[in-house]
């Protein structure tokens, strides 16, 4: 562990620990229906933020691969999608649990829920596509092209389509994100560190997976 190059891993752990502690201890706005579950914002929403950041990595490194043909870029792209998908599934599950107690049903076919599920399927298809191609270079190239198209589709599904219709989820039906009634400034002081912390941890897990993949390939080649 070198402080100079790995400080962001420690920062991620500290920020998430802070959000675990302050997320339960801090004062939250008194709201009907939500009650104490408003604290879920600190734990459910960062999953999606981290997922989007990892999918950005996926798209950027796919483009990088297409221009360079460097295998390392493809490795980063595939592992970003992998960790991103995992975080997205955690986001869906935590969202379902939260919805069960505030919206009445775990799955109420809400536009946000449906489009998030479709977004997950889009990235699941990325792995199906990769699994169906045997030749490494062809697989990397075709899946990189797929990623470039998958990313805007995911953004539209998650952030644009739900806003065009009415949804139970905050930040939809025309409102951009949380408004001051849902989240006050004191909550933001926990929420943003939580988001940054989980993004860092997501990127860290992705980095570990990339290194694992590359060392495995290296050992198998020898």
């Amino acid at each position, binding site marked *: 562990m070198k402080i100079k190059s790995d400080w962001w*891993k420690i920062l991620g752990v*500290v*920020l998430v620990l802070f959000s675990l502690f302050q997320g339960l201890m801090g004062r939250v706005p*008194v709201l009907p229906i939500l009650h104490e579950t408003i604290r879920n914002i600190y734990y459910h929403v960062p999953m999606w933020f981290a997922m989007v950041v990892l999918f950005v990595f996926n798209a950027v490194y796919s483009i990088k691969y297409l221009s360079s043909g460097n295998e390392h870029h493809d490795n980063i792209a595939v592992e970003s999608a992998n960790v991103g998908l995992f975080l997205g599934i955690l986001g869906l599950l935590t969202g379902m649990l939260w919805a069960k107690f505030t919206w009445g049903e775990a799955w109420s076919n809400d536009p946000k829920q449906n489009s998030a599920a479709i977004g997950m399927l889009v990235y699941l298809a990325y792995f199906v596509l990769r699994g169906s191609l045997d030749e490494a270079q062809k697989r990397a190239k075709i899946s990189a092209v797929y990623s470039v198209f998958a990313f805007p589709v995911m953004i539209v599904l998650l952030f644009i389509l739900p806003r065009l219709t009415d949804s139970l989820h905050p930040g939809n039906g025309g409102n951009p994100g949380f408004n001051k009634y849902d989240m006050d400034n004191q909550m933001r002081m926990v929420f943003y560190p939580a988001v940054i912390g989980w993004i860092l941890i997501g990127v860290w897990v992705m980095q570990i997976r990339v290194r694992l993949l590359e060392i495995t390939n*290296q050992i198998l080649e020898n």
Partner: protein
Amino acid sequence: MKKIFILCLLTFVVQWTFAQAPTAAPVEMADLLRSSGKIYVVIGTISVVFIGLAIYLFSIDKRLSKLEKEHK
């Protein structure tokens, strides 16, 4: 290192600096849970789990670094 430690410590107390009193409202919140002090137990449990996971991640990271050094 000392500075980093103090910074970490301060991040945990930042919210106590808010002086405004909470407004009384009829909405039911977990006031009892907090007043009886047992919420600390929950925070403790969660923290132990998360610190454990973090240590686990760090150890995987370390082992990988060793492997990478050997195969250079």
